[in-house]
């Protein structure tokens, strides 16, 4: 069922949903950008459809909703340990096709890699309803089409903003009631981006030639990359984390085990206890990331990790283009 709903009415639906759902969407945080007087667009809870930013790409992906930047695993109180169990509401996430596809990569790791499921992820993930935000046009640095992530049918609701009106497809019928009498039926199916300005060809090999390991193509990144890790933190697919135990400062008897995002580009990520660092150079880290995103993940999960959202390129302070790096790699092979 598809309907055309006015913003005001949509807000009422959202208000109604709020008792059951935390609704997340990309919103604008005024003057919270990296530079003064610049804004930040990130995922946060909304209570009005007006809060959603449609015309710009968010800096951070929605992954932090289901894979929080900091996530407590256990609390320790004296000798006792308590598993931290999330009791939050269900979540409804407004997001785009690339990010929906991105979340499937997270699912691969957290739910399918190895024997065990990551229960912390699983618990959050299971609460999620996807609301697809239709992309009216390709943003800077997007290359979803090349990555086959421009499309998805993995959503419950899809939406297009048309000035003050919203075209809504309710794919999961359980949401039909919500929209009943809220707008006229229309013939709406979300459209997907069919072409990006940026086109990427991923390496199409069974096995990466060993020569790539020390290939000079990586060398430039030693000088260019500053290991800031933004390509990891803004990536929808990056799922690495580091666990830490702490005792609280106010009472050392109490503490927690938590995990935080980490990333292969960040200093210390590949350090062993004792100090050995496997990937010391920025070139080696770039190689690791690149191969992971467009080669070895695929060997394991039959799809590339990278979904071409382009956030790495949007945010690299050193203007390193990942799409260009992929193409360079492919060309070399």
């Amino acid at each position, binding site marked *: 069922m598809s309907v055309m709903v006015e913003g005001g009415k949509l807000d009422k639906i959202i208000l109604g949903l709020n008792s059951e759902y935390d609704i997340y969407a990309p919103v604008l945080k005024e003057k919270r950008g990296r530079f003064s007087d610049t804004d930040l667009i990130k995922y946060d809870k909304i209570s009005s459809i007006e809060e959603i930013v449609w015309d710009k790409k968010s800096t951070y992906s929605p992954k932090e909703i289901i894979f929080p930047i900091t996530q407590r*695993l*256990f609390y*320790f109180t004296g000798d006792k*340990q308590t*598993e931290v*169990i999330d009791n939050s509401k269900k979540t409804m996430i407004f997001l785009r096709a690339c990010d929906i596809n991105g979340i499937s990569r997270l699912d691969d*790791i*957290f739910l399918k*890699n*190895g*024997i*065990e*499921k*990551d*229960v*912390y*992820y*699983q618990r959050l993930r299971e609460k999620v309803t996807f609301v697809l935000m239709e992309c009216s046009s390709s943003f800077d640095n997007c290359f979803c089409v090349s990555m086959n992530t421009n499309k998805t049918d993995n959503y419950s609701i899809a939406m297009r903003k048309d000035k003050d009106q919203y075209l809504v497809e309710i794919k999961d019928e359980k949401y039909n009631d919500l929209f009943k009498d809220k707008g006229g039926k229309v013939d709406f199916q979300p459209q997907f981006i069919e072409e990006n300005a940026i086109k990427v060809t991923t390496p199409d090999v069974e*096995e*990466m030639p*060993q020569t*790539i*390991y020390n290939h000079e193509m990586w060398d430039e990144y030693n000088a260019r990359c500053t290991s800031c890790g933004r390509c990891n933190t803004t990536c929808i697919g990056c*799922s*690495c*984390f*580091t*666990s*830490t*135990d*702490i*005792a609280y400062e106010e009472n*050392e008897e109490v*503490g*927690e*085990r938590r*995990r935080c995002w*980490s990333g*292969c580009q960040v200093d210390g*990520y*590949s*350090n*062993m*206890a*004792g*100090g*050995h660092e*496997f*990937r010391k150079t920025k070139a*080696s880290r770039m*190689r*690791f990331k690149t*191969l*992971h995103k467009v080669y*070895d*993940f695929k*060997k*394991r999960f039959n799809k590339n990790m990278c979904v071409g959202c382009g956030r790495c390129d949007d945010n690299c302070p050193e203007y390193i283009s990942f799409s260009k790096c992929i193409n360079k790699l492919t060309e070399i092979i």
Partner: protein
Amino acid sequence: MSKNPFDFEKCEILAIDILTDIEFTFRIATSITPNHGQFCQVSIPKVGEAPISVSGAGEGWIELTIRSVGILTKKIFELKIGDFLYIRGPYGNGFDLDILKDHHVVIAGGGSGVAPVRTLINYLYNNENYASSVDLMFGFKTPKDILFKDELEKWGDKFNTIITVDDACGVDDGVCEGLITKYVKDIKLSEFSKMKVIIVGPPLMMKFTALEFMKYGVNKDNIIVSFERNMSCGLGKCGHCKIDEKYVCLDGPIFSYDVAEKLID
């Protein structure tokens, strides 16, 4: 609610064996029965967690040989018998015993690389005819770094055992001086095709020892290595131990060298 794979077991420390200044073996009470070469995630809550190879196992206990290299291991070293360690696991694949059966097995270890193969050696020691022949080669930095001295002597009774130190520090202790690669030639290398070489130790030691054996005709696929990485979750989630498409905590730490050498990190 699904079972939480991050959950861990509280285990009493049964014995502490001080091997060197910085290497202790802790025997803890647990019912797990790890394979040879597997590891556990060992922790002290509010301090941290680390992957530690299982270096011994028996009825109701395992042994963990721990090297003091960081905050957690320093804290562990402060524990006494009767205190507790917290573990989850075992993780990793462990050695495939079947492929060793009736083969000439060479086990080459460097430094604390001896720990993960200790249970395997003891198995071979206790099952004398499982392998057709066993050679042991262990390299340490200096005489005082030599681990499992008593067992090395014991093993030496049955197996050809070469112990080397990089620097003898002027002590003539019956050990050889130099890298173990130097002594590969001293191993009886008659039956290349059936020889199984297990190498455990630092990355470069493993690489050059493997190359040395290959020089003498041992096939890559008969060489087995054990990777050390900072396995953290042990569950294939956290990403720290990933090399190429492999997750060391899931697919390793034991790899056939022909697979291992091709992994692009």
